[in-house]
């Protein structure tokens, strides 16, 4: 029912020959971090969720355009505004032989919503699930839920019988003395079976011979190796020890591109990077301006925005791999509004004039908080910003730190000026608006609105879209909210990241805007010149 209007997804199919006989193919790949656990609800980490999706399936999934298509449910309908009926795919078996039934779905939703689950957020607004018959499940929502289907793409279905047998009805307790069975064992309905796992060394998955689906790709065995050191990852790809690297370092891209055996696929990520400002405190915590908060003044926010030379950042720091933007969300996300994608041009004089008008002719001092291991070149961008803002008279001190400390700090709103990036997991603008723009209320709204931007008109729009059943009306609310975000300079937008994936020439993959490698679309062709 929800169709993204924009489908600018980079689809790379390489030399896929339709109808060619599929041959057994091992796909060896690497990235920085390791799989954390195969208990699908015990960690909420993007890479871990991706990896679990090879083994565990959901009721629905995304296709290449990020439209929702059937996975374990073949069709669904709305019985009432708060009740959805899902018809399960018949004759699906878990990898250890148990048939998939409505009981498993109800069990999984309850388990994902249980006390210790780390994945509860994906069930926000879902009241519960009820079995209708063996192959039919009803999902109840608290109110109308326009993004329910998108939420369900990350609700993975486990076998009730298997969980009971192995004593993993409860999600991992990190205070327990022993590991639980589900950490290193998995039993899903998915296309791959977990064969072996050694943390930080190697994880091997084999194709599931009993899988219900027909795979587009031809990978029969997945060998995943985490390689923490960036240079070593590049070396392993160049030497042919791995076929694919999810996160090649930017500085190595020219070398990789110039190698005859390697290709680099660049795709837009559904993530924007931006700068937030404390717009609530009466006096900024980290500034020399006393007794008032300059960021409450729209002119000051605009001045800083005018003072950003985003093209220079793109050219020098990002080596062309960024798309400057003025809108909170990217074109891949449902609700994207081209009219709201407006950013002021780089204009030092205009910025100075605005500052003067606002009563800061000599600028002021402020600290910019920044992560240094989260986004592409994050700390370098912030460093560039400090010198750009110096030109308009601001004295900006940079405080860059690792993400583990950074987010703990800014989520306490212990910041005056900060960098944040947001990838819209549900591919629906509402998610970004609720988390980043709605006034923080401690009840799930404005959780990442760390500068406490607040506009009653904005809150009204967001609250209304959450329960609006009419697709057209809802879309226009989203557009209005995005427009308001741009006009208010709720955040100073920087750019959309472009994510490069590097691989041997014989590999064909579909680049995904959420940076997830969907294994069922990967094709390994012959003749890769491996050593």
């Amino acid at each position: 029912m929800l169709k993204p209007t924009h489908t600018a997804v980079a689809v790379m199919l390489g030399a896929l020959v339709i109808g060619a006989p599929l041959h057994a193919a091992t796909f060896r790949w690497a990235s920085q971090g390791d799989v954390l656990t195969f208990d699908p609800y015990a960690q909420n980490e993007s890479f871990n969720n991706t990896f679990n999706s090879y083994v565990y399936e959901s009721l629905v999934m995304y296709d290449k355009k990020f439209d929702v298509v059937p996975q374990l449910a073949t069709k669904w309908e709305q019985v009432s505004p708060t009740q959805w009926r899902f018809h399960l795919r018949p004759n699906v078996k878990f990898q250890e032989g148990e048939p998939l039934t409505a009981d498993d779905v109800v069990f999984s939703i309850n388990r994902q919503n249980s006390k210790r689950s780390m994945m509860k957020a994906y069930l926000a607004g879902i009241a519960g699930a009820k079995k209708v018959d063996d192959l039919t499940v009803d999902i109840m929502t608290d109110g109308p839920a326009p993004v329910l289907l998108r939420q369900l793409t990350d609700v993975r279905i486990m076998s009730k019988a298997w969980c009971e047998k192995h004593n993993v009805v409860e999600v991992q307790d990190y205070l327990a003395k022993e590991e639980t069975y589900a950490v290193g064992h998995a039993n899903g309905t998915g296309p791959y079976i977990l064969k072996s796992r050694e943390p930080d060394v190697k994880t091997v998955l084999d194709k599931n011979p009993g899988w219900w689906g027909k795979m587009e790709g031809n990978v029969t065995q997945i060998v995943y190796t985490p390689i923490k050191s960036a240079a070593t990852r590049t070396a392993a790809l160049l030497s042919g020890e791995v076929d694919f690297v999810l996160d090649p370092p930017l500085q190595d891209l020219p070398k990789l591109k110039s190698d005859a055996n390697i290709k680099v696929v660049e795709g837009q990520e559904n993530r924007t990077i931006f700068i937030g400002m404390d717009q609530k405190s009466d006096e900024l915590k980290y500034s020399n301006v006393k007794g008032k908060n300059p960021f409450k003044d729209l002119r000051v926010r605009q001045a800083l925005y005018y003072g950003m030379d985003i093209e220079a950042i793109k050219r020098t720091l990002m080596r062309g791999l960024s798309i400057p933007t003025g809108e909170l969300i990217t074109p891949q996300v449902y609700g994207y509004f081209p009219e709201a994608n407006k950013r002021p041009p780089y204009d030092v004089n205009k910025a100075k004039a605005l500052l003067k008008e606002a009563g800061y002719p000599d600028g002021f001092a402020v600290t910019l908080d920044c992560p240094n291991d989260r986004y592409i070149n994050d700390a370098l961008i912030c460093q560039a910003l400090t010198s750009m803002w110096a030109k308009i008279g601001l004295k900006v001190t940079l405080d860059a730190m690792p993400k583990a400390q950074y987010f703990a700090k800014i989520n306490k709103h212990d910041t005056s000026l900060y960098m944040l990036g947001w990838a819209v997991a549900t591919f629906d603008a509402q998610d970004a608006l609720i988390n980043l723009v709605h006034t923080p209320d401690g009840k799930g709204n404005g959780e990442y609105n760390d500068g406490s931007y607040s506009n009653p008109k904005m809150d009204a729009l967001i609250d209304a879209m959450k329960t609006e059943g009419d697709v057209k009306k809802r879309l226009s609310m989203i557009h209005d909210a995005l427009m308001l975000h741009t006009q208010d300079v709720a955040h100073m937008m920087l750019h959309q990241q472009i994510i490069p994936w590097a691989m041997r020439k014989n590999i064909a993959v579909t680049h995904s805007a959420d940076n997830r490698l969907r294994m069922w679309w990967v094709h390994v062709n012959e003749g890769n010149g491996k050593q």
Partner: protein
Amino acid sequence: MTAFILRRVLQAIVVMLVVALVAFSLFQYVGDPVQLMLGQFATPEDRVRLTHELGLDQPFYVQFFHFVVNAIHGQFGVSLRIGKPVSVLLAQRIPATLELSICAALLALAVGIPAGVYAGLRPNSWLARTLLSLSLLGVSLPTFLIGILLILVFAVILGWLPAFGRGEVVHLGWWSTGLLSKTGLMSLILPTITLGLFQLTLIMRLVRSEMLEVLRTDYIKFARARGLRDRAINFGHALKNTLVPVITITGLQLGSIIAFSIITEQVFQWPGMGLLFIQAVSYVDIPVMAAYLCLIALVFVTINLIVDLLYYVVDPRLRADRPGGSGH
């Protein structure tokens, strides 16, 4: 002798407690694991609940106290990152680190001592001069650079050796070894050189300067006057007397090899304790960090003890001074 060892064990316990206390007082600055575990969409209630469950809302000395009590019971908790018991994780990683460290130390000794002796005996030969200049490189180049250079040459350009990992390992009980398979041995070469190079050059330079000094002493001159053969003088008298400082340095360096294999392990994705620790730091995996730091403190204390005992073996004066050391 027994009293000496007992005293050392008591000191070791104190050292480890202090290390753990310092570690816990620092952990509150390394970040918040809850943030990483729950991801970006977690509700505030969930964050509060998990923080409380993990005891992270307690002052560090309370957390430290719980750690010590659990450690006395042999419990080090579960890794927040990969959900496995810390003791199991460390036990799985120790073989990789020890094999690499011992190979690196052996390489350093096997090449460093002969090279140092040679450079000491023939200080003006071209080979000695070349060795000395090369050793300067080994001392001054940072480990990660050496590792990357070796990978570039031997894995990427020549394609002879693997760029990362430990190859195939054979399990002998709880010990996993890479010494019994071809890929395991191949994988060991580059990390061993990377880790051992600094120690090698250090030992070589140390032996050389000690040799030069000893060769000037009266008893060597006397030995020559007695008409002893060069071989007996150089190895029987001179080398033996250079060994005390060499043993001290080697012992202390073995501790640092184990402790600072972190960088080599990271460059080569070598699945040892150092890599585990680095991963733990970036994930704020407090149970793993705490246990690792204590273990490293234990390693250092143990090695120092062994070094002290070795003095008895090498230096007869110590034995003569202390009749209590009659165990030898």
